[in-house]
């Protein structure tokens, strides 16, 4: 069956990690994987730029890491489970890190979750939202 990499593009505010993105995000995600040891976390946090320069990442990927711009990391081939190693190194929880990709701060985001989460109504389709 022919793979359909376009089918995901109408989902609003969502980046689907495809086999194509494993090529684009390879070095960024491998950098994140390296943070699974305490030694590497210490070394990275002590001198982030030097550590990042050890990886064949694009400058845009490196800058997104330095800025902790998780949405930009997604746009450049990152996958959130890899990025989790980065925000874990910063001592952030999933909620703390994930909320930065939304238009809410962490308190607002947590309040939304406790109230039952983001309602899907209006969030099914970019076309429906007038975004496409």
């Amino acid at each position, binding site marked *: 069956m022919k793979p359909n990499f376009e089918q995901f593009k109408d989902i609003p505010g969502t980046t689907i990690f495809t086999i194509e993105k494993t090529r684009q995000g390879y070095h960024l995600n491998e950098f994140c994987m390296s943070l699974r040891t305490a030694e590497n976390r210490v070394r990275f946090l002590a001198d982030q730029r030097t550590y990042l320069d050890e990886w064949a990442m694009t400058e845009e990927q490196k800058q997104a890491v330095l800025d902790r711009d998780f949405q930009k990391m997604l746009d450049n081939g990152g996958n959130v489970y890899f990025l989790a190693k980065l925000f874990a190194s910063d001592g952030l929880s999933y909620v703390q890190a994930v909320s930065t990709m939304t238009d809410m701060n962490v308190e607002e985001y947590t309040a939304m979750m406790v109230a039952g989460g983001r*309602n*899907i109504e209006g*969030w099914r389709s970019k076309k429906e939202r007038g975004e496409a």
Partner: protein
Amino acid sequence: MARITAGIATSHVPAVGAAIDMGRTEEDYWKPMFAGYEFSKTWMKDNNPDVAIIVYNDHASYFGMDIIPTFAMGIAESFAICDEGYGPRPVPVVQGAPELATHLAASLILDDFDMTVLNVLEVDHGLTVPMSLMFGTPDKWPTKVIPLAVNVVMYPQPSGERCLALGKAIRDAVEQFDEDLNVQVWGTGGMSHQIQGARAGLINLPFDRKFMDDLVNQPEVLQYKPHLEYMIEAGSEGVELIMWLVMRGALGDHVDEVYRFNHVPASNTSVGHLILTPKENA
């Protein structure tokens, strides 16, 4: 002969592991969620399996970018706990079941499932959080485990049909194992959640409830649900629910629903949990 005596479905939220490990289960935020597993912990004491085949996914904790198996089975003596960036969870090492696992992996390959065989594997929250929920915090896990890692992170994930068919093949293979063993199959992950992008925090409780109903009563319909539908309706990470289909396939055509629990939220996730047993003589 070995037989499959029950299927367990449960979400495997990392923050749930952290709450247990940090002793926060009595806090207001967490108490209602953990209360929902009290029945299950008691039920497990009375129904402890010799081996649990735990269908889960690795979250970039052991497998990275280099090698991405669709279905991988751990046949080792034991499985260490991954460091997911916070240090490894302080839980016991997971004991394997090499004899059943080699039989099972071999059977599945002979049935034309293209398994990847793992003599080494470290397991992450996808596998250990369900164990903590069902067993609490023992010094040593009371059951042996066969980890079955499914790619749900990278599109294309295995189809719903393939996952249900894998479960059926697991059932056949377990029944052909000569030793008399009580085996459970656990399907983990889900329910609705999205942990990335502007749409993060999506929860769809009607979808989750319908999924549970269909899983119990008409899994053959569920197998044709397109992955795109999970991603739209249950969030980008909701597609983990295909792992519940593997568990369901292993239980036969008809099941009894022993227990059901739902709770929102745990961290970013809708928590769902089922205990199912194969219907007698069905």
